[in-house]
């Protein structure tokens, strides 16, 4: 168990006894100059076999902040995102060099349980991917298979759906198939499913790219609500979405290896979203955000 500044967090290393989740941040709107990192990349390189997809990333994701990763296609945003909860472990030949620290612990450490990492650092994908089960069972599935001790599953399902702003729309049809929901509702169901296992961080890989504008607004509103309890990292190609939702923004680009022509992603600039869009320090950032390339 780690105790810091009045907040407690369960270790991601398997241990005995119940943990206490990180306390929610008051929604005071204050954004410190430096993020108070709950999740941190230290000189991270990600490889697929011999191909280096991303290199040299140093980045802090602030507690109860939304951080947007932006950049042109092929710059390694999603690759980096997937390395933040060891999702890349499931890809043959993928490996990470450097350190990814979750509350000070390296998630790639030898004693770390990858399943526990993915429970604490949940993920929402580009396309809604509900299980072929009922709405209720979609939410209950995670707590059941991870062996969470739950006083009342009904209460947990209601809590998760309420937090995902879906309860009012589905409370009378919990036994219906998740596939009966619209695309936007399915995506909120997926967020509820992620929330149900009590994560600290939610990773979102272009969560609105398959949704219509109205469903997109609902997800963005939801992200603002979720930030009070969770830390969110979002990959997006939509500059206006990054500006609308993110407290901080990291811009990535790719450079080509002169010999092989392979393109490797690199972090160019990281800062408060207002600074990135109003006063970017790097010309490449300014060119990208105003459509010069990408």
């Amino acid at each position, binding site marked *: 168990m780690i105790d810091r500044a009045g907040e407690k967090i369960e270790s991601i290393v398997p241990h005995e006894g119940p943990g206490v989740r990180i306390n929610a941040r008051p929604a005071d709107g204050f954004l410190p100059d430096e993020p108070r990192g709950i999740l941190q990349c230290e000189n991270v390189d990600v490889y697929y076999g011999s191909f280096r997809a991303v290199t040299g990333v140093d980045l802090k994701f602030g507690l109860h902040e939304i951080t947007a990763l932006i950049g042109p296609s092929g710059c390694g945003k999603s690759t980096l995102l997937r390395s933040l909860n060891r999702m890349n472990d499931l890809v043959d030949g993928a490996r990470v060099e450097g350190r990814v620290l979750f509350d000070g612990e390296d998630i790639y450490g030898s004693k770390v349980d990858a399943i526990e990492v993915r429970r604490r650092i949940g993920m929402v994908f580009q396309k809604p991917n509900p299980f072929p089960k009922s709405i209720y069972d979609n939410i209950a599935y995670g707590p059941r298979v991870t062996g969470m001790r739950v006083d009342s599953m009904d209460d947990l399902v209601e809590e998760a759906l309420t937090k995902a702003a879906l309860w009012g729309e589905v409370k009378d049809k919990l036994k219906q198939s998740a596939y009966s929901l619209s695309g936007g509702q399915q995506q909120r169901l997926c967020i509820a499913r992620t929330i149900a296992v009590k994560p600290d961080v939610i990773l979102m890989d272009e969560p609105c790219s398959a949704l219509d504008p109205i469903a997109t607004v609902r997800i963005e509103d939801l992200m603002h609500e979720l930030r009070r309890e969770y830390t969110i990292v979002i990959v997006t190609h939509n*500059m*206006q979405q*990054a*500006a*609308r939702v993110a407290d901080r923004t990291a811009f990535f680009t790719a450079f080509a290896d002169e010999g092989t022509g392979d393109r490797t992603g690199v972090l160019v600039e990281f800062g408060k979203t*207002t600074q990135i*869009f*109003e*006063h*970017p*320090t790097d*010309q490449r950032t*300014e*060119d990208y*955000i*105003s*459509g*010069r390339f990408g």
Partner: protein
Amino acid sequence: MNLTHSTMRGSVKIVAVGNLDLIARGRPAEFRHRGLTLATRPTAMAALLEVGRDPDSIVLVPTNLNDMPLTEFVDILHSLAHVPVIAGIVPGCSAQAVSELFDHGISSTVALPTSPGRLADAVRASRTPEQTEELVIEVGNLTLDDARHRVTWFEKEVTLAPKNFEILRFMLVAHPRVIPLQELMKHVGDNPQNRAVRARVAIGRLRAAFSDAEPRHDTPIETVHRIGYRLRL
């Protein structure tokens, strides 16, 4: 082509005194393309009557006007309706005569017969900055026709949403000045939220539209790092 006293319709009406074939050369479509409506009247009096009907007109009068002293005609126009007057310079007109016309308040000059492009330049020179909003603006290979909401780049049509069209027009009027981001932010609508990113995104959409229209040429929008943007034309 049969050139008679006629009207070629565009967004800015020019009442010209005299015969069309002595005043203009070029096809009617070329004048229309530049947003000019050219209405010719045979005499100064007929032109005055036309201006009375449409006081927003601009008058083009040749320096060899023969049914009334030219300076008197200019004075009447100004006293009646403050109508801008372009003097059409014909061969043999002296510099002193032109100077005298400027003393009487003409706005600009153009050699007759005039091409559509030169007449558009003379019209632009004769109007206040506020009035230029109505004009066809042509710089280099970029043409913006305000009335028709039409933009061409190397003669290829550029498809723009209204907001992006407004931003391009603003940049064209400001050309060749660099437009700071803060200034551009004032032109992205009334919503105060995220003006910076909306300005950046608008620039991105302009660039994409230029690229789509004419991919063989670099887009004319240049980033001036940490300052803003300008048109490179």
